């Protein structure tokens, strides 16, 4: 057990406590394992990596049979059982089959009779364990009591982001040992990020090997202090937005080369932190908007990627190519979604008569922003109404052809419109649609075709 913990601790800084607890619980296969361990914490806190490394150490040092599976993959129970059997199997002679839980348990019990299995330990880790709740009703209870049911020295480790309370159901579950992996605080994060100093250094040395002068500067400048200073600056920008360590690690490495640039050029001294800060602040801020997006820059054309990064609504609406009528259909759909049906006559018919003003209507009209239908979200409309508005706002005369109707389904396919109800019975006209794009977007599209959308919205009248 000490050997395992000792091997793992340098790999997972700031997780010594958890490693020790795990080691005490399942560190020795000669002792009885607990029946189940529940390991939870946010993403990027090292659940999976830690468990995987732990299981690997167990296999290597103590000859424990282990299985690590991802619950997302198991869209049927059978797949899960087969993966489990496959990796727990004692002798890899012929593939064992198990169609249901009963056969699975039978199979495991049979191993109990095998003499070599007596001293053998079995560990099963299930990633994304929250998915187990959606699987067959017997999966989760059986997994939690697997030790009892098979009389093997077996432990199931469940990994999830949710606390265990979310797993309770009507029939109740047997007790598990819960272990929480708390998020790293800022100091810990910095320590973890700093732990790859040697790796980053050697990587960059390899990269700079061609240029002797720069290599010299780099070797001199790149000290642990320098790197930690950088990480400090980096975290002061990023820590508020993101605590996912792998994500931070990735971004930190990406930005480090920018940070290093002026030093390599010789324009800024390596210990002049305030000037380096001024240099890096802009790039860091722009990197902050890119976090989690994982858009890689192609090497050859940088100006092309710049336009992709700038994803403002205006650009989006202009870059989205739609045929002319599709644009009008989208505008019509937006109008239908954001105007009340009883206002249609007023908005779209030329001679709609005079509207009588009553105190009630005047009061109702005095809209506050929370009553604005553009802020309330889209309402549903029928295809008939969509077409009626389309014909009203389009100046030219167009026939109701297949090409036009198929545009509606194209827009649905592009997720610019969405079905609210009655997707199955489009034929009898009871299907209701909804426009899913925002006001900004439609205003831009209106500008492209020369149509003032605001003029036709009740909110702005």
């Amino acid at each position, binding site marked *: 057990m000490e050997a395992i913990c000792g091997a793992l601790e340098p790999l997972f800084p700031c997780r010594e406590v958890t490693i020790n607890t795990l080691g005490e619980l399942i560190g020795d296969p000669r002792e009885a394992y607990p029946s189940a361990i529940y390991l939870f914490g946010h993403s990027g806190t090292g659940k999976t990596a830690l468990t995987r490394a732990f299981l690997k150490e167990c296999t290597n040092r103590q000859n424990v049979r282990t299985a690590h599976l991802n619950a997302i993959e198991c869209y049927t129970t059978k797949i899960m059982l087969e993966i489990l059997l496959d990796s727990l199997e004692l002798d890899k002679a012929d593939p064992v089959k198990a169609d249901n839980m009963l056969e699975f348990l039978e199979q495991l019990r049979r191993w109990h009779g095998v003499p070599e299995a007596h001293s053998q330990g079995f560990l099963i880790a299930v990633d994304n364990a929250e998915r187990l709740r959606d699987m067959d009703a017997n999966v989760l209870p059986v997994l939690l009591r697997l030790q009892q049911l098979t009389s093997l020295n077996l432990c199931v480790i469940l990994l999830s982001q949710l606390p265990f309370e979310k797993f309770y159901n009507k029939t109740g579950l047997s007790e598990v040992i819960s272990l929480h992996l708390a998020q790293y605080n800022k100091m810990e994060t910095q320590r973890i990020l700093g732990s790859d100093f040697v790796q980053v250094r050697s990587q960059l040395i390899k990269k700079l090997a061609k240029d002797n002068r720069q290599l010299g500067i780099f070797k001199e400048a790149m000290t642990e202090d320098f790197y930690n200073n950088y990480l400090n600056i980096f975290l002061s920008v990023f820590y508020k937005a993101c605590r996912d360590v792998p994500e931070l690690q990735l971004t930190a490495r990406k930005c480090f080369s920018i940070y290093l640039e002026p030093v390599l050029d010789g324009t800024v001294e390596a210990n002049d932190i305030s000037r380096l800060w001024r240099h890096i602040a802009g790039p860091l801020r722009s990197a902050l908007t890119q976090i989690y997006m994982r858009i890689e820059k*192609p090497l050859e054309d940088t100006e092309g990627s710049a336009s992709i990064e700038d994803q403002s609504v205006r650009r989006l609406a202009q870059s*989205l190519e739609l045929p002319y009528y599709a644009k009008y259909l989208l505008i019509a759909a937006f109008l239908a979604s954001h105007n009340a049906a009883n206002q249609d006559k007023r908005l779209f018919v030329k001679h709609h008569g005079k509207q009588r003003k009553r105190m009630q209507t005047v009061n109702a009209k005095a809209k506050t922003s929370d009553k604005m239908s553009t802020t309330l979200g889209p309402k549903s409309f029928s295809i008939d109404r969509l077409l009626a508005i389309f014909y009203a706002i389009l100046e030219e005369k167009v026939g109701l052809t297949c090409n036009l109707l*198929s545009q509606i*389904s194209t827009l649905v396919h592009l997720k610019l419109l969405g079905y609210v109800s009655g997707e199955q019975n489009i034929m009898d006209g009871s299907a209701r649609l909804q426009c899913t794009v925002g006001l900004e977007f439609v205003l831009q599209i209106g500008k492209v075709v020369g149509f003032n959308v605001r003029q036709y919205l009740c909110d702005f009248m």
Partner: protein
Amino acid sequence: FSLVILFSQGCFVYKNGATRATKKTPVKRKRVLTSSSSSLLDQEIICQPFYEAYRQTWSQVNAHIAELQQRSYARTVEHLVNFVAMAKPDELLPTAALLTGINQPDHLSQFDALTRRLHDQQAARVCVLLSRDCSTLKAAVEAMVFGLVEYDAGKIIGVGSGEEEEEHDVVERDHKRLRRSQCTLKQLRSWYENNFPSGHEREQKRRQLVVILPDFEGFSASVLQDFILILSAHSVAMPFVLILGVATAMSAVHGTLPYHVSSKIRLRVFQTQAAPTGLNEVLDKVLLSPRYAFHLSGKTFKFLTHIFLYYDFSVHGFIQGFKYCLMEHFSAGNAFSLCSDYGRALGRIKQLTHIDIECIRRLPSFRQYVEGINDCKRVISVLTDDEYLKKKLPQLLRDCHIHFILFRCALEFLTDLVGDLPHCPLGKLRRELYAHCLNKTLVTSPEFKECWQMLSFLARDEFVAKVKRSLARTEEFLVENVAPLELGQACIALLEPQLKTIYQALNDVFQASMTAKTDKTSPSSTYISQISSRQELKAQILQRSKDDKHRQEENIPTTEFARAVQKTLKLVETHLVQVYLRPLQDAPPIHELFVFDDIATVRRNIIGAPRAALHSALNNPHFYLQCKCCELRDQTHLVGTLPDLTVAYKLHLECGRMINLFDWLQAFQSVLNGGDNVTDDAALEQIDPRIQACFTRAVAELQFLGYIKTSKRKTDHVTRLTW
């Protein structure tokens, strides 16, 4: 023939999304039949000269377009192949997002090209997953595994399996026809390890497993998220590469994938050519190429581009539309077999029969030709003697060919000249100008005048550069596109002198000074001298301003430069525009053989109007059935001999929103009984069970067609659904 109409007026919806990539317009249907099996068309038809000419033209055009598209794909495909090759096995899933534009069926062929490339290079196994196969996660994974494992075994044997001999037996052994339910990732993994063992020496050329999702938007978000999570979980063992075809924009990707998924991928964005650009390329290089004898008239041309720009952005659809025009054109008769290369056409003249010659004589432009001959005898022989006309035909054909080629050259000149004027009065693209020039006389149109005015306002350097560029462009066009043609040299010989004169005029412009021309008749105008009194000065100034005004009205330029510019523009107008860019009605005789102008037919047959077709079928079945019993003098008439469905339909048109079934039935009965006024109430109550059966059936059919539905609000009533 009525069957054909029925066929083509039926509605064939062409959905834009890749969920249904099959297009079922009559165009396609005919094509499939003609190209794949000649069994539908009689041998007789296939042997006809017009069919041969059609086939030649179409195969030429088609090959040209295919080549062009291949070239335009090539760059993107190249980038993607590089991306796949560079992708390293990693925790993160390498992902390429290809922004395709909204018409995705067009791009399926692009993904096909990519697949072929990757297989040829032996760099990867590829699986194309369509959203319609992946409604659930299970279906998606199974489809993917099946696609990857079974690829070379099932469909294309020649590509992958032939070369990998050492792996061949492994494949054989492993290959026991997988069942769908066996397609799990476990299976895939064992297959991968068997076939591509990761030995040290082979580490470099590990096969990538490429998964292509051509229609990203079609996938349900949850399936896609899980799918990506699974792939990324396995990407250490198996080097997956994901390629997404995104129709809208990158925000769709980020909208669909939450952080915990998008942090598992490494995204690279690729852009493809925009659909309108692709179309313009096809139009400029193929349809407007002087190489082909077949031309679309301005209206048809505009119509087809209109469908493209206003409705669907489908280049494929456009090409099919063009093909329909081609078929329609050639099927008009054997006379149209002359619409091919000049040399071939000469050979075909001999094959023409009397009927074909008559067909030529009936062309509208032929009449003008006859009227233009002032020799009486020759007129008679042209009209009656087939042999004589056959002798005359080569000259006429030659005129036509030369006319079209020169038209194209002049168009090239004009496009460059007026394409970048502010506001583009004539349009800035070649296709717009083309439609313009063919439709009406350009010189008299107000847009043309506006253009000319703008040109004359240009500064000297600008003007000279512009015209020079246009000239250079035209000459380049002559050398590159026209010279290799049969009649190319003749055309060049015709056009060269014109270009030369313009060039000379341009030189004059270059040398012209900016000073106002000295008017010798009134020397006083240059200097206001010898003024004796204030009145005199006033009078003189008045006189001068009058002169200026007068000159402006007469459009007499004041400076030498302006005069030179005017002269050049005039030259261009008379030598190029008026002579060559003639509208269709002024084109040489028998140009109808080369130009397709039957827009009504095309419109009727290409654009499906389901409501209209159904209405006319139900309202006037005679239109389709062509039977004697259903002939109606007036569309609103109702006779008992009409089909039951028609009677029920017409009666329902007279009703309001709710229809009482019993009233409807009675009306139905009275129509079927031929309007014998049965006054007896008892007879009205008594309904013939046969009639009731007919009625029930007709109502059921109307419901099936979506005209009515049962109502829950009122018993014995149905609701009308259409108006």
